[in-house]
């Protein structure tokens, strides 16, 4: 039974990765699960300098989901390179660094800094709805998507994943723009912009007013977008948005995703990522699927 998948020349032992921002750089979860079992660890967004993030409360629960407005708090690339990469290198899994920035130059600085580090791929977050300059401005305009992709590709030594925003009229258009700019892989979806109001205090539930909606509530939107993008581009897709278990992961794969990321699920169940890996194998066994690649985009 083959569970290996290939993303732009990088072979993952299985298609299961962590969704950026939900798994830190893996250290905290490594107490509870074996990172060696994951296809890849995708880190929290890394910027050129430390970012303090937003005021609290940063999160709020919603029906079947959650809002977050962490605001990309991160220690910046130097600490990341010195502390987090060596930590992740201990494990037999791929390292994908999520990159954030306020300006094109910010992104390029991080991409350059990482170019000679042991990083397998870069995921460029142009879709964070929680910081004014945190990418979403890039991610909602096809010309900007193409332009930043092209710039990043000039500097990147590793394959480049462009992470798309679902807060758009036509995700297919954004996907084609990224592909035209030279993206090797696409990942989708980032969170949907949402809001919750506390009616008793008559105030916003997260200090930032709006936050990004994630969790199983958004899965149908994410599956639809993965399906739509799979029909729009030729490059591989990493699917995410509300994956709670292996069944959800398989749904994304059947819709056209080559790999999947598990995010919010880890908050509900810290073992979720590992369980998805096992569950995919069980599904393949049950239905006699020899190669996971046969499932990718199998429902059309």
């Amino acid at each position: 039974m083959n569970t290996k998948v290939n993303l732009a020349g990088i072979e993952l032992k299985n298609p299961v990765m962590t969704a950026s921002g939900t798994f830190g750089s893996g250290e905290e979860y490594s107490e509870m699960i074996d990172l060696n079992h994951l296809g890849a660890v995708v880190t929290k967004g890394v910027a050129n300098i430390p970012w303090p993030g937003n005021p609290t409360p940063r999160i709020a629960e919603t029906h079947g989901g959650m809002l977050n407005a962490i605001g990309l708090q991160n220690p910046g690339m130097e600490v990341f390179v010195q502390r987090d990469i060596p930590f992740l290198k201990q494990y037999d899994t791929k390292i994908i660094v999520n990159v954030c920035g306020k300006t094109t130059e910010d992104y390029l600085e991080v991409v350059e800094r990482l170019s000679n580090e042991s990083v397998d791929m870069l995921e460029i977050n142009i879709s964070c709805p929680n910081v004014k300059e945190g990418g979403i401005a890039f991610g909602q305009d096809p010309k900007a998507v193409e332009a930043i992709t092209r710039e990043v590709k000039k500097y990147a030594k590793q394959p480049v994943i462009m992470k798309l925003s679902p807060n758009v009229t036509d995700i297919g258009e954004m996907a084609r723009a990224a592909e035209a700019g030279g993206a090797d892989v696409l990942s989708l979806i980032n969170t949907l912009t949402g809001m919750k109001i506390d009616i008793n205090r008559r105030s916003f539930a997260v200090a930032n007013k709006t936050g990004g909606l994630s969790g199983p509530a958004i899965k149908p939107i994410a599956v639809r977008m993965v399906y739509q993008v799979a029909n729009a581009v030729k490059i591989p897709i990493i699917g995410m948005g509300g994956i709670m278990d292996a069944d959800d992961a398989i749904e994304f794969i059947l819709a056209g995703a080559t790999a999947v990321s598990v995010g919010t699920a880890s908050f509900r169940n810290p073992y979720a990522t590992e369980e998805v890996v096992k569950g995919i194998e069980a599904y393949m066994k049950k239905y006699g699927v020899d190669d996971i690649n046969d499932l990718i985009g199998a429902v059309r």
Partner: protein
Amino acid sequence: MAKVMELARVASQVILADGVYSMWIETKKIALEALPGQFISLYTKDNSKLLPRPISICEIDREKGLIRIVYRVLGGGTEEFSCYKEGDYIEILGPLGNGFSIEAGAAGKRAFIIGGGIGIPPMLELSKHLACEKQIILGYRDSIFLKEEFSPYGVTYVATEDGSEGTKGNVLDAVKEHGLSADVIFACGPTPMLKAIKAYAKENGIECYLSMEERMACGIGACLACVCKSSEVDDHSKVHNKRVCKDGPVFQAEEVDF
């Protein structure tokens, strides 16, 4: 101290006061490792709610493999928990956070152990562990709970907002009224109370430990949801944001920037 998720059996549940419940939970591993001041995350059966409900550990019975929580029904999650009966199962993750420093309350010292409202429960297990002289000060809005259970461990003072029992006012009003003093303070409760205690401790040059609260998602330090402003640069992100779930919930008062 490995964290684990367990499907744990409810050993018993009783109501202590209006809306305040006490539940004993059978755990295989968490009871063995838990320390006073640590907490657990509880998960609802209702799948429309995804996030953990962090609740402090109120008592630990290592031999029987039991932990106790005392909580107030606030919203849908605690409402669901309050319906559980002996024999029901509940998913819990723990032990989480750092817990109180037992050494800081070594023999020979004189401590204030201060709990405010639903911040009272974790002080019970702590009281058992501190070797020092314990002056226990409990603040309530109205109805009293857990008070008698503290008596074996020290002199207990009470403050109520409505003055229905003990000092009318807050815990520091009780300290004043009784002319108490101490070398070290351990406190858990609402943020305004903790802020006032920090100021009091600073004024009087007293060592002080505060247990903080914040909304949580992962509960283990990975998501950066639950930060509080810290005076020093934090270890994780180097940006003066300490994680309540991992670097806390207990902080030295000077660490926290209210």
